[in-house]
C-alpha cells in the first residue's frame, strides 16, 4: 500500500502509537507526526528508505532508538519538546543531516557524536539537562549557521572553544566570553 506516498501528515491528533509495518512507505520523504501523544518513535526505520524529514515535535517520546542510523537519507530531524533523555551514538551515521532540533528535552549528556555530522547547519539543544564540557568535536561543524545550547548546565570555560568558527564562535562570544560583545 501507498508505495508512491511522499508526504504523510498526521500532526495534531492524539496518536499514542504509530507502527510503520504493513505499509509500503518506500517513497516517503516527509513524515509529520507533530503534536500527538507518542511515547516512542514511529518504527521500524528500515521501512523508510528515502525519508528526508521527520517531525515528532511535541510528543512524549523518551528516547531516540539506536536504529536511527538506518535513516541514512535523513536531512532534518524535528524532535523538540519531548522527554528524550538519550541520544544514540548511531545518530552520527546520519551524515546528511543539516538540521537537528532537540530543544526542550531531558538530555543529560552532550551528544558529542554530533560533531561528526559535518553538513550540519542548525543545531538546537537548548533547554535540556546537559552538564560538563561542550565537546571539542563541535569545532568540526564548519557549516553551522545557528546553534542554541543555552539553558543547560554546561561548563562555560572550555579553552578549545576559542578555536571555533562561525555560529559556534558567535555563541561562545555571546554566552561564554562576553568580551567581544561587550566591546562592540
Amino acid at each position: 500500500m501507498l508505495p508512491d506516498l511522499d508526504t504523510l501528515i498526521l500532526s495534531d491528533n492524539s496518536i499514542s502509537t504509530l507502527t510503520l509495518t504493513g505499509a509500503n512507505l518506500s517513497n516517503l520523504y516527509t513524515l509529520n507526526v507533530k503534536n500527538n501523544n507518542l511515547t516512542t518513535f514511529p518504527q521500524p526505520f528500515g521501512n523508510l528508505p528515502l525519508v528526508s524529514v521527520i517531525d515528532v515535535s511535541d510528543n512524549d517520546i523518551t528516547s531516540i532508538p539506536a536504529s536511527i542510523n538506518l535513516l541514512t537519507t535523513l536531512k532534518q530531524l524535528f524532535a523538540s519538546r519531548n522527554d528524550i533523555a538519550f541520544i544514540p551514538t548511531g545518530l552520527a551515521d546520519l551524515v546528511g543531516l543539516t538540521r537537528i532540533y532537540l530543544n526542550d528535552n531531558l538530555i543529560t549528556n552532550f551528544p558529542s557524536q554530533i560533531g561528526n555530522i559535518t553538513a550540519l547547519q542548525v543545531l538546537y539543544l537548548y533547554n535540556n539537562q546537559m552538564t560538563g564540557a561542550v565537546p571539542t568535536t563541535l569545532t568540526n561543524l564548519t557549516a553551522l549557521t545557528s546553534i542554541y545550547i543555552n539553558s543547560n548546565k554546561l561548563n562555560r570555560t572550555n579553552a578549545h572553544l576559542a578555536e571555533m568558527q562561525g555560529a559556534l564562535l558567535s555563541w561562545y562570544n555571546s554566552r561564554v566570553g562576553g568580551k567581544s560583545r561587550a566591546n562592540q
Partner: protein
Amino acid sequence: MPTIVSGCTIDDANAEVRISQGTATGITLEPTVLGVYSGCQLHILDHIGLTSNIINLPTFVYGDSIDDVCAHPDINIPLAECQALATFYTDMDGVNWTYDTNWFTEVDVDSWYGISLTGAGVTKYVNGISMPSNNIAGDILDYLFLDIPNLATLDLRNNSITTLTSDIEFASALKTLILSQNDLLNIPVEIGNLSQLDYLDLAYNGLTSFNLDASQQLDQLDVLYLNNNVLTSVSSEILNLNELDILTLNNNQLTTALPLTANTGQLVQLDSLNLAYNLLS
C-alpha cells in the same frame, strides 16, 4: 423635477428601478435588471425634496424576457443550454450575484460572466461555469447536468450552496468540480459515477461523511480535498482511487485513519496524505 421610484418587484423579487432622465412631457425608465417589473411607484418630489405626488405604475417588461433572449439568433449556444443557465440564474439568486456581466444580453455567450464555451462551429457549447465568490445561493439542481452535456468545469467555490443534486451523475464530461467553502452537508454517492473527474474540491463545507459505493468509476481522480469539514468517517471505497495523488482529510473529526488493510493495490499513486487535526488516537 427630481423623481424616484420605489416598491418595485421583478419576478416577485425586490429590485430597484433607476430613473435616468425625466422631462415635463415624459419619463424614460431604465431599470438595472432585465425582466418584469410590477408594483412600481413614481414619487414626484418638490423643490425641497418632499414627495408631492405618487403615481402607481402599471406592470411593465424591461427588455426581452429570458426566453426571448435565449431564442435570439445572436445567442450562440443551444436553446436548452441557455434555458438551463436562465434557471440557474433565477434559482440561485442571480439578482444578488456580485457579478453577472452580460448575462441575458444578446451577445456571444462566451462574454457572459463566468461562462466559457467550446466548439468550432457557429453554435458553441457551455463547457465551463466559474463563479467563485459570487454570492450564489441555493441548491445545485439537475438542469445544469442534464441540459449542459459538455460541462467540464464547475467552479462555485466560496458561495452559499446548500445541496448538490444526485443528478450530478449525468455530468459525464465533468473534469473539475470545485465546491469548497459552501454550506454543503452531504455529497450524493452518485458523484462516484463521474468517470472523467480528475479534480474534486469539497473542502470547507459541513460534510459529516463522504461515501462512495463499490461501483464508483472515479478512475481519473487525481486530487481530492475533503479538509476542513466535520467528517467522522470516509468510506473504504476511497482506497480504490488508484489515480489519486493528493488526499486531504485534515481538520475533520476522524477517529480512525483510512481503513487500510494489508491488501496491495490500494492508493498506489497517492503522493500526499494529510490527516492532521483529527481525533486519531
